[in-house]
């Protein structure tokens, strides 16, 4: 379980998170939604230990994120892989650090995502790089999978493949996935829980199905409504 307790984080004068309390349940897919600048990426970076809270604490199964990195697979929005590596070299590099690397799954996912091991990361398209990042994350049997805008700038067919990969490999009850995105419609059917963030504060959170039933509308409309009242 990942817990945020009164977490505040600022970058200079910009408040990214303002005393946030969130619990990300184990074994579920949680959608972390909100407009640009809501604090979604900062939340994920706090979980991976790339940022530290100014106030409050972030705990992963009761431990500090810096001591839990081995449990977490992180897909950032930016391209973070070495451009001189090919996919095979990148996979070999990443697998050296994680005991949960699943070589069999890696070889299954390669053709599923239409990727070739010899493709050089600096020479492939944005969509292929996005799929490579996903390949490297989902080839691990990690307890926590954090995806920061995995569909951003990706064409419709590649988006479909990415979502299919997530559905295919999600281990319900065992693995927790947090998807940060402002493109809610794309992942609406995927998420069990939702957290709506706005300007560093939690605007709404709960079970996705329950929220849809209670309000009689889709998550996209719920978010629109929540933010209309907030503004």
């Amino acid at each position, binding site marked *: 379980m990942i817990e945020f307790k009164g977490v505040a984080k600022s*970058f*200079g004068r910009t408040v990214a998170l303002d005393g946030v309390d969130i619990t990300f349940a184990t074994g579920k897919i949680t959608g972390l939604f909100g407009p640009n600048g809501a604090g979604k990426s900062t939340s994920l970076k706090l979980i991976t230990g790339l940022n530290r809270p100014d106030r409050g604490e972030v705990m992963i199964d009761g431990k500090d994120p810096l001591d839990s*990195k081995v449990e977490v697979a992180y897909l950032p929005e930016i*391209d973070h892989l070495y451009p001189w590596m090919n996919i095979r070299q990148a996979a070999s590099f990443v697998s050296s650090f994680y005991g949960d690397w699943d070589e069999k799954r890696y070889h299954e996912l390669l053709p599923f995502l239409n990727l070739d091991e010899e493709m050089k990361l600096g020479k492939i398209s944005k969509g292929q790089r996005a799929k490579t990042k996903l390949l490297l994350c989902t080839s691990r049997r990690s307890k926590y999978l954090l995806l920061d805008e995995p569909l951003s700038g990706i064409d419709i067919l590649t988006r479909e493949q990415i979502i299919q990969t997530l559905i295919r490999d999600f281990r319900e009850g065992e693995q927790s996935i947090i998807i940060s995105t402002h493109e809610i419609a794309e992942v609406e059917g995927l998420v069990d829980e939702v957290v709506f963030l706005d300007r560093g504060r939690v605007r709404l959170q709960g079970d996705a199905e329950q929220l849809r039933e209670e309000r009689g509308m889709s998550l996209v409309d719920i978010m629109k409504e929540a933010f209309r009242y907030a503004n």
Partner: protein
Amino acid sequence: MPTSNWQRFSALYGKEMRELRPEIIIVVAMAVLICLTMYAKSGTDARDLLIVPIFLLMGLAGFLPFVASFKLLGREWSTNTIYLIMSLPVRGGMILGTKLAALISQYLLGTLVVIAAALFWVHPHLPEIVNSLNAMTGSQTKLVQFIPGIAMAYLLSLTWLFYLISVSFLSQLIGKLFTRFNGVITLIVFLATLAFAGWLMDLSRSFCQFSSSFNILGPGLQSSLQQAMVFMGVNSAIYFVVAALIMVVSILVYRYRIEL
């Protein structure tokens, strides 16, 4: 099954060596080129002139790892690969340690290749050089007696490089704590750390009551060689301790202060 620290170290070290490959290839290729030219000019005066490029190449091989220390760390930020590196389940000590190990390897590889090239050129003349040195100093020193001194000088150069790389890492990491003017801050911290470490080393030398004044070419070459050995040994130890301290501070800054 968790992966071993050795496996993690190897992966990071291999990656760093790949990043340094172009500079290593340049030095090795130039050394080979000079060797081949020397071979082609064998028996001519032009061959003697090649000692100049050999010395220049030695300087380049020694200086490149220091320059590359800025590239190796700074590029992680400019290419966003720092996101990958910082999310890996390894401590800052291993991240900076593998970079240091790669830079030291680059130095060893470059300088040893150049030394080998120089020896290839100079080895027929070595007895003449030792004889003229003995004639100048009036002593009877054999060639093998110079070897410990040369080895100690090489060790001193290694600790000196370790010191410069540590200062480079620390100044870059402190620069990364600032979003604006980080290049200027890096330069200021670099110079300030050099000045502070210089003061610390002077203090250590005066604490050891160690005098650095001696004359290698004065009368009594062997006693001068011994003095030089002590000088280089003490300085190597001082450089090593100060460099290790700066490296520890760099690791702490990386672990507790660096954020993305």
